[in-house]
């Protein structure tokens, strides 16, 4: 990852949201720009109730009978059951969505560069198909003490820690659209990653802002997570 500041509309790949968050400062990622910070110190905000657009961070996935093996051959741990997630020390989060479907969410440390490498490896045979999740899905990350509280206003699944501990995954409906919600940790903070049809990027961003207002939530940049 480079440390240069960029204008988000100038990069080749763009998050559908960049105009909405134009008041942030942006960092460049391998092909795009990511909101680095909105104010001098977003971390306090992130610990309380923050929302971060991680769409530019690289992610990938495979589906098929041999997808689990392929994942292992790439050196990734395989969550034991569907709807579970594991986070590697290097920061990648492995999400298992079904018996045969796996996603890898890139790390904030390298903005997912390592995942790009993995995605380049040829997939074995005919029973392991790479997925399109980098483009089909947008990625928003909710952080802080009120993740479950915010989600309770949008989603019927109980996401309080006792029933949805770190490592839990729910494929569910959030504010009437389908979403994958992953409870994991970034830089020691509990976060909920929401992955959902990229067309709804602006929609869900606004809905989340509205739901967060009760908890004084606000957008945060990746700097809040020690990047």
């Amino acid at each position, binding site marked *: 990852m480079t440390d240069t500041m960029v204008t988000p509309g100038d990069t080749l790949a763009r998050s559908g949201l960049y105009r909405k968050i134009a008041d942030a400062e942006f960092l460049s990622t391998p092909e795009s720009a990511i909101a680095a910070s909105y104010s001098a110190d977003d971390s306090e905000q992130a610990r309380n109730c923050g929302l971060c657009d991680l769409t530019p961070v690289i992610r990938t996935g495979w589906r098929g009978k041999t997808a689990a093996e392929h994942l292992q051959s790439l050196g990734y741990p395989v969550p034991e059951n569907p709807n579970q997630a594991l986070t590697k020390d290097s920061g990648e989060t492995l999400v298992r969505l079904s018996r045969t479907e796996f996603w890898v969410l890139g790390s904030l440390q390298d903005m997912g560069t390592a995942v790009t490498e993995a995605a380049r490896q040829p997939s074995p045979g005919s029973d392991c198909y790479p*997925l399109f999740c980098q483009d*089909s899905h947008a990625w928003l990350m909710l952080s802080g003490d009120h993740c479950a509280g915010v989600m309770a206003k949008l989603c019927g699944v109980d996401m309080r820690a006792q029933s949805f501990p770190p490592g839990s995954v729910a494929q569910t409906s959030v504010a009437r659209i389908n979403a994958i919600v992953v409870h994991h940790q970034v830089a020691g903070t509990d976060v909920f990653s929401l992955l959902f049809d990229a067309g709804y990027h602006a929609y869900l961003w606004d809905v989340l802002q*509205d739901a967060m207002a009760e908890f004084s939530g606000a957008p945060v940049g990746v700097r809040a997570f020690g990047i």
Partner: protein
Amino acid sequence: MTGERLNAPMGLLINRDQPVSFSFEGRHYRGYAGDSIASALIGNGQWLMSRSFKYHRPRSVLTMAGQDANTLVQLASDPNVLADRTPVSEALRVEGQNYAGSLEGDRDALLNHFGRFMPVGFYYRAFYKPKGIWDWWEKAIRKKAGLGVVDLNATAGYHDKEFLHYDVVIIGAGPAGLSAALTAADAGVSVLLVDENPVIGGALTYSRFDPAGVHADGLRNELSEKVLNHTNIRVMTEATCNAWFTDNWLPVIQGKRLYKVRAKECIVAAGAYEQHVVFRNNDLPGVMMCSAADRLMKLYAVRPGKKAVILAGNDEAYLTALALAEQGVHVAALIDMRDKAQDPALADAVAEACINIKTGMTVYEALPQAGNKHIRAVDVRAITGQGKVADQGEIIDCDLLCMSAGFMPAYQLLCQAGARLSYDDERARFEITDLQPHLHIAGSVNGVYTLNAVLADGKAKALKALELLGKAPAEPVPAVHCEKQMNYHWPIFKHPQAKEFVDFDEDLQIKDIVNATRIGYRDVQLVKRFSTVGMGPSQGRHSALPTARLVADATERSVSETGVTTARPPFNAEKLAVIAGRAFDPYRQSAMHHRHVELGAKMIPAGSWQRPAFYGAAENRLECIAKEAHAVRNKVAVIDVSTLGGIELRGPDAAEFMNRIYTFGFLKQAVGRTRYAVLTNEQGVVIDDGVSCRFAEDCFYVTATTTGVDSVYRNMTRWNAMWRLRVDISNVTSAFAAVNLAGPDSRKVLEKITDLDVSAQAFPYLDCHEADIKTAAGNIPARLLRVGFVGELGYEIHVPSRYGEALWDVVMQAGAEFGITPFGVETQRLLRLEKGHIIVSQDTDGMSHPGELSLGWAINRKKPFFVGCRSVDIVMNAKQTRKLVGFTLPADLRHKGLKPEEGHIVLRGDDISGNITSCEYSPALDAIIGLGYVGIDQADTGSQFRIRVSGGHEVQAVVTELPFYDADNKRQEM
């Protein structure tokens, strides 16, 4: 004036340090913070609060608990507000409703005297002769209908919703609920305790439980403190659980938020409703439930009268008598319909308070002050048989009559859950049975009334719930019994001059109920529907039991056989805004969305997507479309087609799968080639179409319509759950952004941005390729399809959606020198029509089969199977009745207002033989062109048919061979 209030400890809810002023019917009053509108009004001596629905009789508080319609008032933009539940606030303006003139001097009160001309169901027997007169009467009658007035400018404000999950949810924070909550919480489970009142305690907050009146407060304080401080209990006050829905799904309304609560176990401890006695003028202001008087005093420190009479059907009323006496109300008499009190000690205590007890007697009639504005006295008679009284009675003066005929369990939530409410006629007791496995009842809703039994019942049900949660209780579940008798068996006394109200909401008297059965409406459900009993705002809370008794008696059945009408949600009336809440209205935008907005596009919905209709101001629609069409036909133009569905099929069986799903043959589709793909459902109806691109032996990328793709994808995955072919199916619609670059110069533009050889030889019509699009910032991997929806040389460019905006930018830059023009869906619709391409769902309907659409060429009838194949065979072998054809009309018709519009009908003789599905003026052809269904005998090219256009005019159209434009497809194939 705040009126004089009783001393503490009366007035639990009010804050005497905080006076509040408000107005009612334009007059100013003062109350205290914590007062309800009703308590504040009565505190000021203002009793009259509303006029009844039908006879416009003066009404005042009945229950003081929001359980009746007598206190419905009007706030500025809020009709039908319960004055006995709604707090007063500073400067609140309250009005009465449903009157002519003023609440005090309602002119419609005259209707009271015409009651005898308005027998039950009189509407059905009048107003329709002579024929046609009802139209007149209806208008007159409708004016009088309804209660409050809607403010047409009212807005909802912000309402929202939240999901909650608890191990145990307890509805009702009376002694039963409190005891249940503590038991459950002590075992370590999460508990939600919901009560509609501002403070917890239920009956403990207002009711007297012992003659001395010392027990309730202590117990309430003790239990409340424990509950409020328990870490496992969340208490929600002023929150109403408004229904029971499947699997313990409980809507709890608190203020402007709707909580949707899921309970693993639900304990309903909702208490019981006190029941009224049915006698003449039982609706006069000053006649109320015993518990209403208790509440006025205990909760609001309001003295309900100076001189009271108590009408008792149970021992509870004795306690009210004591409470009144203690607060300085002169209790002139306690009339007990029974022969004696169940608890002799209570009778002694009342007698000691110098209250005259008369047993075996009833109030036969309440005597009104002038204008029926208040009770003045009661006519007390000895009971001589069921519902019968002595000829002579005694008149006792009073300004307050407190009555209690008994208690009916708050059965609503339970009956919504499928439980059965039964009534033991012998013992005059209710029972609720057939409960759902994870639903429990405790306390007076369960027919348990003595305080210790209520507490024990709460505990027992919590233990039961814990057991089901797998937290087996350490102690045995206690058995709870209660022999306390609450209901007097026949508290109904008919009077020759009637006005003995069974249902206050609907002004229904004894004879109305009985007569309904005599006219043939014998089932209690028919009685309800014919008389409207129980159909008013309080939904039969008080009328259900007397109605059941009267119907049972009139039809010689038991009350249990007669039953009550169905309890339906909601429990209390709920504001529409609360249930609607914050509306989630998801929309999708393509990666290029903002570029369209910047270019001034008029956006329109397409399914959940937003798409440009055309670029420019709405008022210039036609010019914009013409300009865009011209650019496509003559230069180069570009349209965002990102919303087009995309499905990726990969695996060794991908071709086999395509072959079974779509009508065409796909096994032999060459790699690098595209093919039109039509989808029929099992009925053989065309439901979608698209383009199939084969990028490898084992890889197809197939498009679908914007609005159809989700169901196409679902269908595919379902079929493959049965076929079990080795194919992976992905809906990649949002993964790709795409444009269609179209027009004679499109190749020149494309050449500039790719290294691929795009010459006609290397990249012929219907080819598809993967190649990079070059930009200053780097290369974009792309899929290029040479297809021709609009009939010009053209290319679809599909790229991963993250690059969508960059693709748009590079195409626009490269095209600038050729005058590239963006175009929208409306223009596209016109252009494809010139090419005779159908739009599935516009040119097809729910019955269109491929034969009617002349799509026979897109069907491989030799292959063994595709979804719908057999149905297609059947319909194509049957006699055809209609066909979709192209037609033309002279251009100048549109200036005469005679251009057919989509939806106009096609005629054959006097019959309708078809309809127009698409019709536009084509600038390229300078003619009106269209597609439409015509009778099979009208479908030959060159034949004419009639279209009925606006204004009933008819025009003759000529069936025209498709396509209209560029018949030999030279342009798209160049």
